[in-house]
């Protein structure tokens, strides 16, 4: 059974801090790993990672995948209160019938002013 474990489950920081969110996975027929941000509504797409060692960046957010050790990290630098959200990690498995995402429980990030 595919499995995704995120840590920490919750994190409280002050504005300006840098945070690292962790995601480890076990999946048969790995296709990709995705990060989403969820603020009490639709999960919004952040990154899709398919290759090891290639960092993806978007502003203050960056992410990298290690397919050998089966984990990914999401970094947020110079955090702002607007970064407060649940960050979801999901892995996509290659299925004969299409594809599906298996999600972790999420990391609840709270950024205090």
């Amino acid at each position: 059974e595919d499995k995704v474990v995120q840590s920490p489950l919750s994190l409280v920081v002050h504005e300006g801090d840098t945070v690292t969110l962790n995601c480890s996975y076990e999946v048969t027929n790995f296709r990709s790993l995705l990060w989403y941000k969820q603020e009490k509504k639709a999960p919004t797409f952040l990154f899709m990672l398919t290759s090891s060692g290639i960092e993806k960046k978007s502003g203050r957010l960056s992410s990298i995948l290690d397919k050998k050790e089966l984990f990914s990290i999401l970094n947020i630098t110079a955090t702002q209160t607007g970064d407060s959200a649940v960050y979801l990690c999901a892995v996509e498995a290659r299925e004969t019938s299409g594809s599906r995402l298996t999600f972790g429980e999420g990391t609840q990030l709270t950024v205090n002013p």
Partner: protein
Amino acid sequence: GAGVSQSPRYKVAKRGQDVALRCDPISGHVSLFWYQQALGQGPEFLTYFQNEAQLDKSGLPSDRFFAERPEGSVSTLKIQRTQQEDSAVYLCASSFTTGGNTIYFGEGSWLTVV
């Protein structure tokens, strides 16, 4: 449409009542997914459509749950004889093709069974 649209946004159902949740995916998207998200948990896969074909329904928790997408666009998730444990957010998602493409989520239908 501009995004994945779901309705109703909020539904309160009495135990034993049937409910129907609608999803309107992004225009042209072939793949459509339904996920169930309980409070404080990550979304869990329910079912997957490629056009009108339901290719994977292994995540549906019981035979009270039924999904359809008859014309390959709008989808409906129906829950019969709702129970309290069905209370969750039901998320619909779509993507252009199968595999390796960004999957876009709707805002969800929040179901509370009382």
